[in-house]
């Protein structure tokens, strides 16, 4: 490379950096922001708009009405689905926390070797390399009347009759969801726990605090952002679920997501949109509530 050229390109760079200073930011941000507005914001607004359209048997027309909304809140089936969705969501959320926290505590706090920590976390993530739908389906031969769990329990003489409530009930949906989503709770919590400075805990111990007190006063509060992030992950996934419910409940447990799928299937767009808006509203309330506990952006 000649001696002149670097100086030359430096001159260009100065010109360009002036331009970049002014508009560079805009250029970097524009593609992402435009993409999100066109393909995320517009569809969601469309959903809101269509929820007020008039639904006839097989088509919708843009004559504004609240008929679909009235149907939703006055129908036992649909309003019941809303309550059922909330109930299952809360149950799964609490269970993923209760089941996941001790494992996260062990991985994040008690395993001090970084390599072992990584191996354990990777071990938790590996099942995710199997297709989500196949993982859900694999619960059927586990929970069924002649499923793995009943066979094992009968072999050990713990039960004489197979337990039948395990499959095609609300319970099976909850078991399936907890198993699938618990990792999203464990990951963030373990991450936060691993970041706790050891000297903090040593200091507490030197000052004579009991293990339980250290957990309550130091470890748990510091892991709280992880809990919140995990709770957000689990909440958004469970609230928008329909596949687990349709695979493990034999279509007996209908969540809001299932109803949307059915309505779209029968071309009831306006009605599906109403349920979509209700679901969005529920999720917004849940996420905003959770974000009040912790500032997500500062924790990253």
């Amino acid at each position, binding site marked *: *490379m000649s001696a002149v050229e670097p*100086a030359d*390109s*430096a001159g260009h*760079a100065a010109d*360009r950096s002036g331009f970049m200073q002014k508009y560079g*930011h805009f250029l*970097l*941000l524009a*593609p*992402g*922001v435009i*993409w*999100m*507005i066109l*393909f*995320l914001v*517009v*569809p969601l*607004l*469309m*959903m809101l708009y269509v929820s007020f359209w008039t639904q006839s048997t097989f088509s919708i027309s843009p004559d504004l009405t609240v008929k679909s909304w009235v149907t939703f809140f006055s129908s036992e089936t649909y309003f019941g689905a809303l309550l059922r969705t909330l109930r299952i969501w809360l149950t799964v959320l609490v269970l993923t926390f209760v089941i996941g926290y*001790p*494992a996260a505590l*062990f*991985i994040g706090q*008690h395993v001090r070797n970084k390599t072992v920590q990584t191996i*354990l976390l990777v*071990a*938790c993530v590996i*099942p995710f*390399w*199997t*297709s*989500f*739908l*196949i*993982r859900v*389906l*694999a619960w*059927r*031969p*586990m929970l*069924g009347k*002649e499923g*793995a769990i009943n*066979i094992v329990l009968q072999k050990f003489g713990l039960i004489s009759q197979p337990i039948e409530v395990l499959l095609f009930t609300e319970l099976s949906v909850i078991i399936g969801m907890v*198993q699938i989503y618990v*990792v999203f709770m464990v990951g963030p919590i373990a991450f936060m726990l691993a970041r706790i400075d050891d000297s903090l805990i040593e200091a507490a111990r030197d000052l004579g605090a009991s293990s339980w007190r250290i957990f309550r006063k130091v470890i748990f509060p510091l892991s709280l952002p992880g809990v919140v992030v995990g709770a957000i992950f689990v909440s958004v996934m469970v*609230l*928008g*679920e329909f596949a687990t419910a349709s*695979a493990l409940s034999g279509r007996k447990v209908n969540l809001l997501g299932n109803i*949307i799928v059915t309505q*779209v299937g029968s071309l009831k767009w306006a009605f*599906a949109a109403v349920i*979509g808006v209700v*679901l*969005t509203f529920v*999720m917004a309330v849940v996420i905003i509530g959770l974000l009040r506990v912790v500032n997500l952006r500062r924790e990253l």
Partner: protein
Amino acid sequence: MRNFNFLKAGLGFYTALFITFLYAPFVVMGILSFQAGPEGGPQFPIIEWSTYWYQHVLGIAPPSRVAPLPIAEALTRSLTLAFATMVVSTVLGTLTAQAFRRHFKGSGFVFYLVVLGMMVPGVLLGLGMALVADQVGIARTWWGTAFVLHVVYTYPFAFLVMLAIFNRFDSSVEEAAWALGVPPGRTFRKITFPLIFPGVLSAMLFAFTLSYDEFPRTLFTGGSEVTMPIAIYGTFAVEIHPNLFAFGVLTTVFSFALLSVYGLLMAASVRRAKTKGIGVQEDIE
């Protein structure tokens, strides 16, 4: 202290149980994939061990009443879609994260706008996009309407990964390059990119996996040409057969291969950063 060790052992045992719980369906899937075919169903007990369902998946089993999975077309579509999604969302994520290295007005808005993409359930976004396509008069296809939603879903993950990378990034090397008059494009290629490469790989991995397994968004926007997850979802309505489990085992093995490539690339990049760190200066010239 003894109390503490007892607690640790207890938690360790619990974690072992926990991981077993995570793997249970996986193990069941593995066992049942060797069920006898074509009459054996997806349940216990195993009638006879066989590899029939693997042959069935690969299309070399004699024809039977069980319809074969549309591997050839559906899998190709899924892989193509995942690849395109990976490229676009990693580029978008890197660009946006790069912009976030300086504080700017409205950064909070952009942050939440992007993160919203991974928050909104697929079923809602799929529905919204289907409605838009319906009104605008665009055909719903896996490479069009479904593709843009896949990016909406994976781009936030890429963005967050890159944001985390840039947060721990020592920008003095870059500043040194600028001070020496290296143009921004070249600085990015020679300095910034090698440093953020591990992050880029992770972002790509995230995007590819998420897109490959994505189905609620695709269900409403993918049109009549199905991707692999949609093909599997289609079997929900009818009877399921162990061929799904055989397919699951095969794809998991395939994923492991992919993960190993990722691990090797990662290790290579770390090694190169270590040995070549001193050579950066000559590289810029």
